[in-house]
């Protein structure tokens, strides 16, 4: 069960500064655990961010993105109260969606 993302969406002028933290192992598939066993690849491949239902960022990741990933973006023409929804999906079928509301800086 994936943990909730931390999403901040702060309005600066007419632009929302969106900062997303995701709890995810981003395993490369070649790391060995303490017992010497390979930890299977497990990483986010897709992150989609929408503003009031409209896609503003459609991202694709490899396992070169760090564990517990961070994603920052800026949304022009945003307003207080706009709904920012973030959805990620990983290579094992895991996915999660969380949302935040644009608020004043």
């Amino acid at each position, binding site marked *: 069960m994936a*943990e909730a993302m*931390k999403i901040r969406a702060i309005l600066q002028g007419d632009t929302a500064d969106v900062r997303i*933290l995701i*709890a995810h192992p981003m395993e490369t598939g070649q790391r060995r655990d303490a017992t010497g066993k390979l930890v299977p690849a497990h990483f986010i491949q897709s992150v989609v961010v929408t503003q009031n239902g409209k896609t503003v960022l459609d991202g694709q990741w490899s396992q070169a993105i760090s*564990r517990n990933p*961070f994603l920052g973006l800026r949304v022009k023409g945003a307003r207080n109260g706009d709904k920012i929804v973030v959805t990620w999906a990983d290579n094992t079928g895991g996915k999660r969606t969380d949302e935040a509301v644009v608020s004043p800086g």
Partner: protein
Amino acid sequence: MQCMPTMAKLGAAVASVAFTLFAGVAYAQTGDPLAVGRQMLMEDNPGDLWLDRGKKLFHGARGPKNASLEQCDFGQGPGKLEGASIRLPRYFADTNRVQDLESRLLTCMETLQGFKRDELQRRAISPAGSDGSDIEALALYITSRSNGMKMNVALDHPKTREMYKAGEQLFFRRSGQTDFACIQCHGESNKRIRLQDLVNMTDKKQIQDVVSSWPAYRGAHFVVRTMQWRLYDCFWQMRLPELKYESDTSIALTTYLHYQGNGAVIKVPGFKR
């Protein structure tokens, strides 16, 4: 193609060494070449992902007694977390012991929730690259409830004063094959082990920056680490035997360091490389 990079050529490696030389000089003049990265990492701290988990763990019914930690007394009364961590370590009459936050947390998990203490001690420090331990998440959450408040450890009990003085002596006690005590690496400003900045713990501002920032997300381990871990790891690095979790030695050192850092404004989670 004008932009195609040269891939891993020997020439590039040689050039890179030469560049390094110049870069070193430039950094010395313009400041810290690591600063940009640190700043970028600090702004968005994955340690924040641990806060909700710590909160749930604190309020949830758990353990053999199926109880929450809401009655846990960190010195400010049962369940009162605001301002608790800034006064720790302190003496607790019920255990007749000076305890830091982590030791006190274990006391509550043992007495209120029925967990076995040795089990808790064994699981307290999580493996690097794991999801982290419950104790790490709880320690962070509880400390975060004092965010914005000033460290205010009081030497108001004879046993706390004993621990303070013991911590001081330990800080200077050299042993082992490196002949190190804490002071060998933490007694002067602007020093580094390799590229890692060393905190001068004899400097008020620098020790304050330390005591205000643990528990912290440790970038290299991908988990939240606590002060107990920090001390354990230092002894490891000094080639000394393994420091026991919540031992008096660890609490004495924490008493000494926290008292030196009194006045520091708590801001956790910190972010360490």
